[in-house]
C-alpha cells in the first residue's frame, strides 16, 4: 500500500470511484433522517474514499486534498460542533442538547428545530469520524512516520 502500485487500471478506477464514494457518503448523511445512515456511516464512507486514494496513489496524494493540520483541526472541530450545539440552548433557559430551543435563533418551529438540530450534530459526527478514521489509517499504515516515508519515496527507497 505504501509501495507505488504501478497499475494504471487501479488508478483509473480509483479516480472514477472516489467522487462517487464521496457523493454517496453525502447521500448517506443527508438521508440519515429517513433511511438507514447518518453521520457515523457517512463519515466512515468519506474516510474510505481517502483511504482509497492512499491505497491507489500514496499518502501524499491524500494529504494534498486534506493536509495533516487541517485533518487535526477537523478531529476537534466535529465534536466541538456537536458539543457546542448542545451548549447553545443553555443560553435561552433550555437544557443541554435540547434542540427545540434552537428555534429562538433560527426561523423554525420547535419540532423542525429538533430536526435540523439533529442534522447539525450529525454533521459534527461525520466530520470527526472522517478525520479520525483518516488519521488512524495514516498513522497505522506508516507507523506514525508520514514524512520520512514520503521522503524515502522521493529518494527511491522502497521500504
Amino acid at each position, binding site marked *: 500500500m505504501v509501495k507505488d502500485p504501478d497499475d494504471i487500471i487501479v488508478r483509473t478506477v480509483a479516480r472514477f470511484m472516489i467522487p462517487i464514494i464521496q457523493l454517496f457518503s453525502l447521500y448517506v448523511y443527508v438521508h*440519515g*433522517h*429517513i*433511511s*438507514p445512515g*447518518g*453521520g*457515523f456511516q457517512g463519515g466512515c464512507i468519506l474516510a474510505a474514499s481517502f483511504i482509497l486514494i492512499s491505497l491507489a496513489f500514496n499518502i501524499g496524494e491524500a494529504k494534498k486534498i486534506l493536509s*495533516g*493540520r487541517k485533518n*487535526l483541526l477537523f*478531529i*476537534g472541530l*466535529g*465534536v466541538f460542533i*456537536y*458539543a457546542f450545539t*448542545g451548549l447553545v440552548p443553555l443560553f435561552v433557559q433550555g437544557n*443541554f*442538547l435540547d*434542540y427545540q430551543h434552537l428555534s429562538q435563533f433560527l426561523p423554525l418551529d420547535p*419540532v*423542525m428545530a*429538533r*430536526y435540523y*438540530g*439533529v442534522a447539525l*450534530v*450529525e454533521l*459534527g*459526527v461525520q466530520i*470527526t*469520524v472522517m*478525520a*479520525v478514521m483518516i*488519521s*488512524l489509517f495514516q*498513522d*497505522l499504515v506508516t*507507523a*506514525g*512516520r*508520514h*514524512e*520520512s516515508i514520503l521522503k524515502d519515496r522521493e529518494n527511491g527507497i522502497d521500504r
Partner: protein
Amino acid sequence: MSRILGIMMVTFFGALLILSTVDFSPWSDPAQPAAVHVSPRYIERTIEETGIPNVVTSVLADYRGYDTLFETSVIFTAGVVVILLLRREKKW
C-alpha cells in the same frame, strides 16, 4: 499461570451465561419487557416530537443524544491517543 487464569475466566463466563439464559423470554416476543416499557414512545412519537422518520436516528441524536456525544468523543479519544502514541513528525 495467566493461561490457567484465562481458561478459568472463560469457564466462569460461560457458566454464568448459560445460567442466565434459562429464563429469558422466548426470542422475539413482542410482549417482552424490553419492547413495551421505554421504546414504544420513541416509535410512536418520533414524528410529532422530532419530525424524523428514522427512529434510530431520532433516538441516537435526540432522545439519547448525550450518549452519542460521548460516542463521538470516544472516536475523538481514539484518534488523539493514536496520534499521541504513534505520530513522529517534526511539524504537523
